[in-house]
């Protein structure tokens, strides 16, 4: 179960945010979407999560067209947005129950899932704490736990490590990789931080709304005769990260 994007373009008025994007994510893998700020990553995420309507091209998620079968698509998809979408004044449990209800899960159905996901992220003790009392790393974990409540097959994370300290960033990254391995979850992790990418990760480099390269990090380095992905990224985009 994966994401297939064909001939996708999107513009804000006269500004082209995405141009002719073609991409197929590798199933059960940690797929990295690498691009500097303004590359079009968030626009792509907004299209994948149906926040924006398609202008041209098509997206198929887990075998369903996003334009024609949105409900089936959204059931298979978990999304973590770049900016926090938790309600700070509500408790962790209240936030999670709200999400579960939006997916048609009753409290009785949701409770075992909430318990399981919070335990995975070592947050069981914080169930009834207000989100406002959680630090940035814990809030991110709650958001990921929330995105996994309805047991999606694909998880989208838009710059999930922004604003976190390096240690928390690394542990979050490892957690998600563990999820990929344990649950065969397909992950799309957008970032502008190259250190979050490993050599065997499928990587897509997005720059000014276009895909410049897409393959595993190792393969890309070989193809472009680059020492590492960081050097390759700089030479392709003319930017540093």
């Amino acid at each position: 179960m994966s994401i297939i994007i064909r001939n996708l373009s999107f513009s804000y008025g006269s500004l082209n945010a995405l141009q002719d994007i073609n991409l197929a994510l590798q199933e059960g893998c940690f797929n990295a979407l690498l691009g500097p700020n303004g590359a079009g990553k968030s626009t792509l995420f907004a299209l994948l999560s149906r926040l924006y309507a398609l202008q041209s091209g098509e997206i198929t998620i887990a075998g369903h067209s996003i334009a024609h079968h949105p409900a089936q698509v959204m059931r298979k998809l978990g999304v973590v947005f770049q900016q926090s979408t938790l309600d700070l004044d509500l408790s962790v449990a209240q936030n999670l129950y709200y999400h579960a209800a939006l997916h048609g899960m009753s409290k009785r159905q949701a409770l075992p899932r909430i318990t399981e996901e919070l335990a995975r992220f070592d947050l069981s003790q914080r169930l009834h704490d207000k989100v406002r009392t959680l630090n940035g790393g814990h809030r991110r974990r709650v958001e990921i736990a929330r995105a996994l409540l309805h047991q999606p097959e694909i998880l989208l994370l838009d710059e999930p490590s922004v604003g976190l300290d390096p240690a928390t960033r690394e542990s979050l990254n490892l957690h998600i990789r563990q999820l990929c391995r344990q649950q065969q979850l397909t992950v799309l992790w957008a970032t502008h931080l190259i250190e979050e990418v490993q050599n065997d990760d499928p990587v897509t480099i997005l720059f000014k709304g276009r895909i410049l390269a897409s393959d595993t990090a190792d393969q890309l380095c070989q193809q472009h005769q680059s020492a590492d992905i960081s050097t390759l990224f700089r030479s392709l985009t003319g930017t540093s990260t």
Partner: protein
Amino acid sequence: MTLRDALICFNGLLQRELLRFVQQRSRFFSALVRPLLWLVVFASGFRAALGIAIIAPYETYITYEVYIVPGLCAMIILFNGMQSSLSMVYDREMGSMRVLLVSPMPRPFLLLSKLMATSLISLLQVYGFLVIAWFWGVEAPLWGYLTALPAFLLVAMMLSAIGLFISAKIKQLENFAGVMNFVIFPMFFLSSALYPLWKMREASEWLYWICAWNPFSHGVELIRFALYQQVNSTALSIVIVVTLVASIVAVRGFQPQQGMGKR
């Protein structure tokens, strides 16, 4: 979407609105200050200046305070409806709309459920106001408080749907101040909330016609009659039609990227 899914989803939305309402108790009290100022200060001063003839649904001469209460109930609903609709388009504080929109439930259902949930919450404020008005000596028949409930809800849905449509379509109204000046105040003052329309007709024929065409006037009259256990069928028909049309147009025109691209 099954009926069970829909009920769970609506219940979740309603519970969230209730929780937020409980969290923001201060907002509840401050929302009551506005209509109470109108009732206690404005109506007291205005009573001497305005004589109200016997008009339906009232069976006798009434004080100005009695006349103004249904309009003030509608005002509470108007402010709440506009505020919540505007926030559905523009307010991405904590991105709660994003969480809503990534639900697999049909988007029209989600939007209308949210409008209904916020409408139900604003009824708590209306009844809070009616309790204080009762202590202030403005009493409707006891059963009237119950018969007015569907009228409050219908008017709340109408105003929220109009609010959602306006917020989504008119880009210039990008904050609450804009909505207040160009939507809420004209809607409120050009209506039968503060003065009967015949009185307005004495002053100006064209102002009268604007008031008569204002859907808010019909909302106020629907509430006024319902509070006295009567049905104003003209007002009811107009409110139902406007609610349906505004809901359809608002839901069809709702484009989340419009609000997101702006800030």
